[in-house]
Each structure stands twice: as C-alpha cells, then as structure tokens.
C-alpha cells in the first residue's frame, strides 16, 4: 500500500522569533535585509496602485497585499537564468526579478508596453486565464532538459487554479519526464468569493502533486525565510536532475480579489482581521530588529526611498502617452500581412490623438 506525507515547514514565528532552524542563507545579513526591503517596496507600490485605481488613473488592479513573503521569497530563490511564470498578483516576484514598477503600472493601466520588461528578457508576463501558465512552464522546463541547460522553470498558481485541467496536465508531464519545474501554489484561501474548502475536498493542495509522482510540501507563506529556503532547495534539486516539486505556500488574500471586487459580500471581517495579525512584513521586521540587523532609522529611510521610487514610477506612468493605433497591428506577426495594411490605415484615420 502506498503511503504519502505532506510535510509543513516554517521557521519564522509571527513574533519574529525563530520556530525552526535559520536557513544557511541567513548568514547573509544583506540578503535578509533585501528580502525585507523588497516586500516593503511591493506593499508601497500596491497601496499606491489601489489608490490610483480608486481615483480613475489605473484600470482594474489585483492587490498583492499579504502575499509579499511568498512572492519575494520564491522570486529570490531563483537564479537570473531561470524563467518565471506568474499569475497576475506577484508584484514582489517581479520586482525582485528586475521588472520595473512602471511596467506593472502600464500593464494594469491598459498598455501592452507593460510587458516589455527592459531588464528581464525571459520571464513571461502576467497570465490572466486561470491555470493556463502551467503548460508554458512545463514547456520551458522541457526545453532546458532537451538542451541540457542547468536552468529551472518556476510557476505560480493560485488555489483556484489547481481546479483547472491545465494544472494536472502540466504536473503529470513534469512527473513523467522529471522536468526541472518548481510549482508554487499560492494558497491565499480565496478564489474571488470561493473559499478553498469549496474549491476542493483535498486536505492540502500540495498533495495534488502526489498523483503526478511529484513530492509536495506546505510552507508558511507569510514567512519569507522558509519560502526562500524551500523553493531554493526545490530549484537546486531540479537543477541537479532531481525532478519537479510542488510547494504550497499558505497565505491569505488580505485585499479584495481586485479593485472591482467587494469581499465584504462573502467573507467575515473577523477572518480578515485574524489573518491581518499574521501578515508577513511586520514579522520579518521584528526578526531583523531582534537580531540587531534593522533600526528605526533604516526603516524610515526605506519607507522614504520606497515612496520616492513609487512616486517616480507613477509620474512616469501618468506622463506616458497612449500608444498609436498602429501598435494594434505591428506586433501581431513578425511582418504584417499585406491584407492588414488597409485596416491599419483605416484605424489611423479614426485614431484619437495619443497625448
């Protein structure tokens, strides 16, 4: 009879003390501070993005509030040459991987140039159709395997996404071919209004890996140290030819699903308040402070710099003129088919001014 176990790991307690062993990378105090700084930058950005939407300056925006440890920890575990496949909420992962705040604003501001990523040439842009990114990551991993490159694909998916066929299809492939793929399930407990208990009767989401012959484990998704550590271990294992992994990060969507949503319609304020007490940024700050790695002055400086960075990105975003109507056509193919030239001309004739 087959028996399986889903381990759960955490190392940073909510009060900032260690409840497990400090990972080896913990010796790198600058890395610890960088993890914290990126989480704060992600949240500063997020707060501003929600405000921009509320004042009509940004389109619908899915807040990442509360997910910062999972997003930053997983992104930080990757090597530059690895490839990341996100859903649409992973601001912290994107920032760590060199995507500019301006890009993220442009994308949610209805401008395709927000997917160009000047400093990151391989990662896929945000992926809105739920679960559909999974096979792309498997395909990238298969290409690394075929070419014998020591690279990995890292793919995020939400709790809701694990209900899609594409999730199982991709994991199944990864299992059969022992692909260098790491799947991070960001279990934030809510798929818009549907709680994870309604999504699946599975006791954990990590155990969905077992059916594909892949090890699965859970981590405290509000603990940036354990996310960084466990995702790092999985990536290294995959890089050595050890095959894929599934890591379920347990966190909580502290915000509405998007700015178009009103979560008060379907979940209780007490639940959100309880989750709020476990949010990831305060915990990491308490940890750093207790170890003498962080001061009030550093905190003030970080807040000031983050706000300035966000403000600069917003300013640039708001000053970005709209693309011309030509751009609807110019990126459809490497070369525009002759038959479409007339339509491009037609669009020009009716186009509104771009600034």
């Amino acid at each position, binding site marked *: 009879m087959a028996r399986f176990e889903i381990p759960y790991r955490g190392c940073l307690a909510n009060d900032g003390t260690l409840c497990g062993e400090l990972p080896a990378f913990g010796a790198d105090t600058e890395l610890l501070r960088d993890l914290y700084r990126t989480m704060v930058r992600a949240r500063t950005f997020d707060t501003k993005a929600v405000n921009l939407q509320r004042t009509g300056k940004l389109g619908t925006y899915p807040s990442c509030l509360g997910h910062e440890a999972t997003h930053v920890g997983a992104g930080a575990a990757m090597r530059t040459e690895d490839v990341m496949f996100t859903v*649409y909420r992973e601001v912290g992962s994107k920032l760590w991987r060199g995507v500019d705040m301006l890009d993220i604003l442009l994308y949610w501001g209805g401008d395709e140039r927000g997917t160009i990523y000047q400093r990151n040439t391989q990662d896929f842009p945000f992926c809105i*159709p739920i*679960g559909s990114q999974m096979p792309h990551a498997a395909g990238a991993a298969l290409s690394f395997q075929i070419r014998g490159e020591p690279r990995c694909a890292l793919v995020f998916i939400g709790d809701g996404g694990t209900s899609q066929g594409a999730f199982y299809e991709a994991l199944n492939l990864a299992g059969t071919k022992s692909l260098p793929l790491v799947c991070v399930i960001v279990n934030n407990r809510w798929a818009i*209004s*549907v709680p994870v208990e309604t999504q699946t009767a599975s006791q954990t989401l990590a155990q969905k890996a077992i059916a594909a012959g892949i090890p699965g484990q859970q981590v405290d998704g509000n603990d940036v140290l354990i996310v960084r550590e466990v995702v790092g271990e999985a990536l290294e294992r995959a890089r050595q030819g050890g095959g894929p992994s599934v890591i379920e990060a347990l966190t909580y969507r502290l915000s509405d699903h998007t700015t178009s949503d009103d979560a008060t*319609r379907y979940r209780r304020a007490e639940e959100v308040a309880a989750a709020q007490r476990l949010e990831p940024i305060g915990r990491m700050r308490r940890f750093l402070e207790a170890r003498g790695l962080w001061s009030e002055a550093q905190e003030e400086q970080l807040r000031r710099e983050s706000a300035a960075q966000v403000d600069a990105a917003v300013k640039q975003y708001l000053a970005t003129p709209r693309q011309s109507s030509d751009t609807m056509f110019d990126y459809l193919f490497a070369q525009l088919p002759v038959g479409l030239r007339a339509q491009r001309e037609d669009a020009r004739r*009716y186009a*509104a001014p771009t600034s």
Partner: protein
Amino acid sequence: MAKITMVEAINLAHAWEMAEDPSVVVLGEDVGVNGGVFRATAGLQQRFGKSRVQDMPLAEGLIAGTAIGMAAQGLRPIAEIQFMGFIYPALDQIASHMARLRNRTRGRLSCPLVLRMPHGGGIHAPEHHSESLETLLCHHPGLRVVCPCTPTRAYGLLLASIRDPDPVIFLEPVRLYRYARQEVVDDGQALPIGNCHMLREGSDLTLVTWGAMTVDSLKAAEQVATDGISCEVIDVSTLSPIDFETILTSVVKTGRLLIVHEAPRTVGVGAEIAATVAEQALYDLHAPIRRVTGYDTVMPLYRLEHEYIPGVARILDGIRATVGD
C-alpha cells in the same frame, strides 16, 4: 413600474423561472453568495438555496461539461462563464458535446441548457475580459446563439433560452449591463429566439448590427437623418440561426446594406450575413455591401480599446459611403 438595467432584468428572468420550474439550477464561478461578478445572480442563492445555485471549482471546461450532464438528466442548468475571454477551456465541451449530443444520440439525449457570458469590451477591463467571440460559437451547428441589447429583450430572451429544448449560448453585452434602464414587465413572458428586431425603420439603407453596437448604430442613424438619410436599423439578436427573412426584406426595400459588429472582421458573423444577402438579393442592391467591424487584431488592452471598437464616426462614414455609391 420601476425601470431596471439589463443586468437586473437578467437577474429577474433567472428568479422568475427558478420559482416556476424547480428543475432550473444555476452554476458557475462566484454565482452563489457573491451573486456573480456583474451581480447577474445576486440574491438567487439566498432565495433558492445552495443546492440550486452552485459555486463551481474554477474550471470553465468543468462548468460547461457539468451543465451537459445535468441537462441530459432532466435539469435546466443556467451556467455562467465569467468573461467571454475565458471560454476557451470550455470550447471542447461546447463543440464536442453540447452542440452534438442530440444529433449523435438521434434525439435520445439532449442539452436544454443556457451558457451565459459577458460579451465585448468598452469597460476598461483587464486583458482577456473584453473579447467578442461569437464566431467561435456560431460556427458550431447545434447551438443557438442569442445576444440581447435592451433590458426587456434580455428578460424575454433569457426566459426563452431557459425553456428552449436545446443549448443556448446567451451573450450579454458588457457595456450595456448598466447602460440604460427600461420598464420590464416581470410576467414570465418569453420573447421568441430566432427573430431579428427592428430598432428603427428607414428607406435608404439597412444597417444590421447586434449587442452593444446597436447603441452607436442608432446614434449614427439619428445623425444622418438630419442629412436626409433614412436608415433602417436591425438588431440581429439571434446570431445563430439568423433570421435572414427580416434582413432580406429590408435590403430589398432599401437596396443598401451596412453591417456593424465589434468582433474582428475576418469570418465574423457579418461575413455570413453579407454572403447570404449577396446570394439572395444581389440584384436588389444599389451599392456594394459594406462592413464596419473590429479590426483583425488581438483585442487591445483598454487604453486602445476605443481605437478598436467601431465608434459612431466609423459607422457614419460607412453609412455615407454606402448611400453615396
């Protein structure tokens, strides 16, 4: 009588039929306590219970396929796809099974179900939330495809769709959900599927359109009326099968045809209408048939969506060019 929006009319039609017919059930993503992301199913779970209004796991193929199984077992499912851009995983179920079950079992099994979804753009929504994909559905024999453009039509056509013995795809123009209010008599009266609706009578040109483009088309027709051009505006309303009789009668009368739709031009439903009119009424035409449509591009993100969606200016030029020929 209170005036209500299209989304409220859709909600009323659900409630009427659920109260009348215990076999009517609702399923989809966030349709339960949340009442749907556009509020189309608001209050239904509270009123009719969790058994009849079911939140489904997040999988469009599952929703479409489950509805088929339920319908074949005698229920009348109304399934919601949250946005039309998310229909792709469901297409396998729609094309391979929903559209074919009656035919392949020679009538032993059938799919009396409604698959509802928002249609089109214009509301500053994110990527994949603004598509007009009716062609994908109209190309599959065995499906009815309905697209109302007012609250009263939405109410009556949804009731007809629920009562239809075959699968009906019900497209809800997203920018009309709350665009206008209308008095809707909540009396359970269905409107027939398969009929065009005359929105404006005229003698110089037949303008055929549907969904949210009816609004811009009527505005354009009104503007050219001041120049003495008389447009007849027809809402196709049922995109499959199309009521060609009404369209042909009008074209024979006016001698001119302009087709306006939001979906891309190539293999759009407009091409089918143009071909049929050319086949059956070519000698009644005084001018070439014209189309004003979305471009053959990916639906752009929202800052360019109004460069993509045909506006009044493009329709006006289409009318003037056709009348001038």
